[in-house]
């Protein structure tokens, strides 16, 4: 068995066994599993300001730990999910939300891809629709052209030894 052949099953096994890594420490978790689940869900939607492409749920940064604690404190105090997020947005702005809010200044961001798709579809539609119209515009051969064509084909028939396909 080749080296890669021996390595592959091991790698697959490692892939299967590894869950998603998260940074929440057991000491941070709330006793109430429902509240903890909400805290985890909210944490996954909040950006760590230090390592900015991670959520605070994923990040081991010290500040992410603090923000996780704040999320849990607010939830324990009876805040709704929206209130918890608003608490952090008030301090760090929309930047702290991994999903930017849907509002006037983010319209292009949210609707842009759909708009481009529509434009493309419209372009294809227009192109396809024009094609039969272009075929209809082809004018039939005039009588003179038809005669010339007949002469040419007659010439060819008169020279059968001429190899086909290598004229000109």
């Amino acid at each position: 068995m080749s080296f890669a052949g021996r390595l592959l099953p091991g790698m697959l096994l490692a892939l299967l066994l590894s869950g998603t890594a998260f940074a929440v420490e057991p000491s941070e978790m709330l006793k109430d599993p429902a509240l903890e689940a909400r805290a985890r869900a909210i944490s996954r939607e909040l950006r760590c300001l230090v390592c900015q492409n991670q959520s605070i749920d994923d990040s081991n940064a010290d500040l992410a730990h603090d923000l996780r604690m704040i999320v849990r404190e607010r939830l324990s105090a009876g805040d709704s999910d929206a209130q918890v997020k608003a608490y952090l947005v008030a301090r760090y702005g929309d930047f702290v939300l991994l999903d930017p809010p849907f509002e006037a200044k983010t319209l292009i961001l949210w609707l842009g891809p759909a708009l481009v798709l529509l434009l493309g579809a419209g372009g294809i539609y227009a192109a396809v629709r024009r094609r039969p119209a272009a075929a209809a515009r082809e004018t039939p051969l005039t009588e003179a052209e038809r005669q010339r064509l007949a002469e040419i084909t007659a010439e060819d028939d008169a020279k059968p030894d001429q190899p086909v396909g290598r004229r000109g």
Partner: protein
Amino acid sequence: MMRHRLLFLLPVLAFLALAVWFWLGLAPGRDPSLVPTVMIDKEVPSFDLPPLIAGKPGLKSADLKGRLTLINFFASWCVPCRAEHPLLLDLAKDNRIQIDGIAWKNRPEDAAGFLVDLGDPYTLAVADQNGRTGIDFGVYGVPESYLIDKEGRIRYRQVGPFTEDDIQKKLMPLIAELSK
């Protein structure tokens, strides 16, 4: 026919527009990781912090009314703070402004030691050991500085260490305007 030819130019124009947009994104002074503040022109968040050294006065948000203050979040573990420190010592000589230091997520004795070693530009030096006051300001690293006007509103935020240039071009004009 002319109209069709213009239509073919459309993708080229779209590409050019994108290219200019991306090129602007590469501007040398632009830091894409900078978190824009939402605190400008807002009332300073309420806080009441203990002094670094027992017996000295602490600092609370209400104290900031009636004077122009630069609040500097720092920590003894923070390397860029050391780079910024001589500039703060210089700025401390300007009597139009009071510089107060908040040691962010730092043991008070460590922060006090830092000031003994490098000099103390702060009128008041206080401890925000759990970092909550910093978070209320929107601090996400140190050093970070906030200029508070006489009404207690945040007028300017500096992320990262001040440079000579920042102080001359950004801070000084504001100090001149706000100390009138």
